[in-house]
C-alpha cells in the first residue's frame, strides 16, 4: 500500500498550482470567466506550454500520462483555482480520438480546442439515441443536422466531437469544424464557456460508427476529472470556511467557538475525506473492468458532498457568502453546478442501482 503521489505527479501538481496562483488570481478569474470568450486564450496557451495536455494523454497517443491519477492531479489543481479554461474538452477529445493520430498533435499543443457535443434538449444525460441525424455523403464524410444543448466549452472551441444517429440506427461520433456550424456562445452561471450548437446539413467526419462503448469510457474519465475538480474546489472552500470561523467575531468571540458551527464544519471535513477516498478508488480502477462502477460511485458521492460543502460553507459565512465579490460564492457555484455536468448524483445512483440488480 502506498498513498503517496509519484514524483512526476508531485512536480506537475506543484508547477500547476504555482502557475495558477500567479496567472489566475481571483480578480482575473472573475474578469474573464463571465465575458466572451469566457476564458483567457493566453493562459490556455500557457497551459499547453506547461504540458498540461500531455499529462492527459497516454504515451501511445504521444502524451506523458493519461492514467486516472494524472487526470486527478490536473483537475484537482484546476478546481482549486476555479479555473475556467475548458480543459475537460481536451481530455474527452484525447480519449475519443485515441485512434486518430492526425488529430492528436493539435490537441497536445493546444492549437485545437475541442468541445464534446452530446446533450440534447429533453435528453441531458442520455447520450445513446440522439435526435441529431447523420446522412452519408461518401467514405467517412457525412452531413449532420440537429441541435446540441449546453455544450461545455462551445463558446471557445474550434473543433467539435458530435454524436448523431447513423442512417441505419447505431451511434456515430463525428469530428466537426466550428466553421461548418452555428454556435451561440454563452457563459455558464459559474463562469467559463458553453453554448448551443446548431447543425444544418453540416459536414462531419465519422470517427467511430459504434460509439457507445468508447463514449461511455470517455464520459467516465470525464466524471473522474469533474470529481477531482470538485475536490480541489472543496479543499479551498473548506480552507476559507475554517479561516472565517477563526477570524469572524460575533458576541465577543470567534464564531468557530460555537459548537453548533464546529460540528457542521467537522461534518464537511469528514465528507471531504470520503470524497478524496472515492476519487482515489476510482482513479486506481481506471483501465480496469471496475472503472464504470467506481466512476459512478465517485460521481454519485461527490455530487452530493459538493453541494453540501457549497451550501454549508455559504450558510456558515452568512451574507458575505452570497456576494459576487467574495470568492467563496464562485467556488460554491462551481461545486453545485459540477453536479449538472456529465450526469448528476441521481443519474449515477441509477447506474449503480442497475448494477445491483445485475450483480
Amino acid at each position: 500500500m502506498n498513498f503517496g503521489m509519484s514524483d512526476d505527479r508531485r512536480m506537475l501538481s506543484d508547477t500547476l498550482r504555482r502557475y495558477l496562483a500567479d496567472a489566475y488570481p481571483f480578480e482575473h478569474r472573475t474578469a474573464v470567466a463571465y465575458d466572451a470568450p469566457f476564458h483567457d486564450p493566453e493562459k490556455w496557451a500557457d497551459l499547453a506550454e506547461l504540458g498540461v495536455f500531455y499529462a492527459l494523454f497516454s504515451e501511445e497517443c504521444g502524451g506523458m500520462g493519461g492514467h486516472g491519477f494524472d487526470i486527478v492531479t490536473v483537475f484537482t489543481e484546476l478546481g482549486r483555482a476555479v479555473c475556467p479554461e475548458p480543459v475537460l474538452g481536451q481530455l474527452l477529445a484525447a480519449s475519443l480520438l485515441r485512434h486518430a493520430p492526425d488529430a492528436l498533435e493539435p490537441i497536445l499543443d493546444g492549437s485545437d480546442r475541442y468541445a464534446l457535443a452530446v446533450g440534447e434538449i429533453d435528453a441531458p444525460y442520455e447520450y445513446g439515441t440522439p435526435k441529431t441525424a447523420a446522412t452519408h455523403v461518401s467514405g467517412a464524410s457525412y452531413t449532420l443536422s440537429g441541435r446540441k444543448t449546453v455544450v461545455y466549452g462551445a463558446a471557445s472551441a474550434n473543433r467539435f466531437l458530435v454524436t448523431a444517429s447513423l442512417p441505419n440506427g447505431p451511434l456515430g461520433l463525428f469530428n466537426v469544424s466550428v466553421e461548418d456550424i452555428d454556435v451561440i456562445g454563452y457563459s455558464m452561471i459559474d463562469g467559463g464557456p458553453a453554448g448551443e450548437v446548431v447543425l444544418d446539413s453540416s459536414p462531419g467526419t465519422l470517427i467511430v460508427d459504434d460509439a457507445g462503448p468508447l463514449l461511455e469510457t470517455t464520459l467516465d474519465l470525464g466524471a473522474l476529472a469533474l470529481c477531482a475538480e470538485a475536490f480541489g474546489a472543496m479543499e479551498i472552500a473548506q480552507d476559507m470556511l475554517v479561516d472565517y470561523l477563526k477570524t469572524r467575531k460575533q458576541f465577543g468571540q470567534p464564531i468557530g467557538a460555537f459548537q453548533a458551527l464546529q460540528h457542521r464544519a467537522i461534518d464537511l471535513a469528514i465528507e471531504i475525506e470520503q470524497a478524496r477516498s472515492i476519487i482515489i478508488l476510482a482513479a486506481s480502477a481506471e483501465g480496469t473492468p471496475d472503472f464504470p462502477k467506481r466512476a459512478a460511485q465517485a460521481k454519485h458521492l461527490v455530487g452530493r458532498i459538493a453541494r453540501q460543502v457549497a451550501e454549508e460553507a455559504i450558510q456558515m459565512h452568512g451574507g458575505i457568502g452570497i456576494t459576487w465579490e467574495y470568492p467563496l460564492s464562485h467556488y460554491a457555484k462551481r461545486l453545485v453546478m459540477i453536479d449538472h455536468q456529465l450526469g448528476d448524483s441521481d443519474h449515477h445512483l441509477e447506474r449503480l442501482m442497475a448494477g445491483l440488480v445485475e450483480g
Partner: protein
Amino acid sequence: MDLSYSPQEQAFQAEVRAFLAEALPSDISSRVASGAGATRDDMERWHTILNEKGWLGGTWPVEHGGQGWGPIELHIFEEESALANAPRIVPFGLKMLGPVLMQFGTAAQQAEYLPRILDGRDWWCQGYSEPGAGSDLASLKTRADRDGEHYIVNGQKTWTTLGQYANRIFCLVRTKFEGKPQEGISFLLMDLDMPGVEMRPIRLIEGGYEVNEVFFTDVRVPVGNLVGEENMGWTIAKYLLGHERTNIAGTGFSVQAYAQLKDLAQRVTRNGKPLIQNPLFAARMASVEAELEAMKITNLRMLSTAAKGGQLTHEPSMLKIKGTVIRQELNDLARRALGPAAAPFPSEDLDNLAIAPPGHGHNAAGYFNNRKISIYGGSNEIQRNILAKGMMRP
C-alpha cells in the same frame, strides 16, 4: 499510489482466511451471523483456539506471548474475522489492560497478569463511566482514599460491558480532589470478589444483557494494585484510548452486513418482485455501498500512515463517526427489509416458525442494540469536539 497489500500481507491474509475456515467452529459462526451474538462459552472457546495458535494477543510483542503484528496485519486479522463471522476478541484484557501494563505496569504486575489474560484465567472488565461522568469522564467521583497499604474505594461505575463474566476490573478512581480534575485520577486494579463490590446487570433496549453497574462500598484494595504513579490515571486512560481505536471504522462488520443485506434484498419480495428491484430501497443500498467503499479507502489511508510510524491525529475520530453512521444505516436497511417479519420479539421458539428468512430473526434487535455504537467509546459528538479542537487550533 498503490491500493493493494504487499505480497507478504497477501500471504498473511490467505493464512488468516485458511485458519478461520478450519478452526472457527460452525456453531459459533452461525450464532454470530444470525445476530443472536456469541455466548460466554463461544467467546471463551474462541479465545482458547486463538491462544493455541498464538494469535489471541497478535499485536502483543513476542516476549509477552504475542506476534508483534503491526496495524495492517491487525486490520487483516480483524477484517477477515468479521467476514468469517468470528466473535470479536473481548478487548478489555487484550487490547486495553495488556498494552497499559506493558507500558506503565511494574515487572511484577506484567508477570502476574499478562499470562492470565492470554490463557483466559482472568476476564477483565472496565470501570470508567459513572452515572454522573459519561462524556465528561474526568468529572468521575469514585474515590480511593489511602489507608496505610490499602486504598479504600467507594463509588459507582456503569456501562461495564460483559462485567457479568469478569473476575477482575480496572478502574479510574479519584485520588485527589483539588486542582484540575484530570490531574487527580488514578488507575487501579481490583478483584470483583473483594468484599464490598457488587455487580448489577442493566437490561438494554432490545432485551439483552451486556452492560452492568458496579457498586463499591469500602472496598480495601492493596496499593500494589495501582498501575503507574498515583494521579497519572488520565495519562494511562488516554494511552488506552489509542489502543481501543484500532478497528474503529469496523469495515469488516460493515462489509459483512452489506453482503447479508444484499442477499436478503434478493430473497424478500415487494409487489411480487425482489426488494432489490425496489428503486427506493436500491437507492439507499447503492448509496451506502459507495459510502462504504470510500470509507474502506479512508481506513487504509489511516493504516498506511500508522504502519509507517506516522502520527494519527484526526483520522480515528473521522472513522469512528463515518463508520458508525454506515453501520447504523445498514442495520436500518436490514430491519426495514423484513417488513412486519422484523417485529416479533426474538426467541428460539420463533426461529422454528421461520417468519423471517433464516439468520435474520434478530435484525430489529441488532438495529436497536447498535444505537450504542455512535454513543460508546466517545460519542460521535465528542469525536466532533476532538476534531473541532484540532481544526480551530491557530
